[in-house]
């Protein structure tokens, strides 16, 4: 079963706006990761945040983690048309033998 669940399922914004995607999970984790997938391609790793971290930045990406609420958010600032893709969270849960489990993803469309 999926460990991570992204919200919303789809998001459409204008270029230059910020995009926020959320991820909720069920069990205790070691770390949480965000991936991006362009249509017809494999997933590309964006950022990893460990369970003892609360926030990480990478370029225009900002990830937060709230282990008390079992949730994470991915913020993309100043979005570009090239950010159009699906975004997935994945969790490395102790209960899953540390295998990564992925959510169903958020489909982000950035209109030029």
């Amino acid at each position, binding site marked *: 079963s999926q460990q991570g669940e992204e919200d919303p399922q789809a998001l459409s914004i204008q270029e230059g706006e910020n995009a926020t995607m959320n991820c909720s999970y069920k069990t205790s984790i070691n770390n949480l990761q965000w991936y991006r997938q362009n249509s017809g391609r494999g*997933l590309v*790793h964006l950022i990893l945040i460990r369970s003892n971290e609360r926030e990480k930045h990478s370029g225009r990406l900002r990830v937060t983690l709230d282990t008390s609420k079992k949730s994470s958010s991915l913020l993309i600032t100043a979005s570009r048309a090239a950010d159009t893709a699906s975004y997935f969270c994945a969790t490395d849960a102790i209960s899953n033998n540390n295998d990564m489990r992925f959510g169903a993803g958020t489909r982000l469309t950035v209109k030029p």
Partner: protein
Amino acid sequence: DAGITQSPRHKVTETGTPVTLRCHQTENHRYMYWYRQDPGHGLRLIHYSYGVKDTDKGEVSDGYSVSRSKTEDFLLTLESATSSQTSVYFCAISARGGYTFGSGTRLTVV
């Protein structure tokens, strides 16, 4: 994607036939994974390997087997393909800080 290749990229096969997908890595990583991706389900783990001849089941392993006779190759076999196994299959290696995925194999079972 650098260091990991999947073959074939596309395949159409008939119900009941065996099918083998190949994943090849040049990174000498110990851990390798096979996932399937279906609309509404995200990626689901089929099998994984933690070394040569060391494999284990994931959450959707029924109807699939794997083999790893060399560090660089991880094979996924559909023993008798069914229409429910029509999917996009991704191989991944576990690298420091995250997974690296192949470009995927689109399998259609007719």
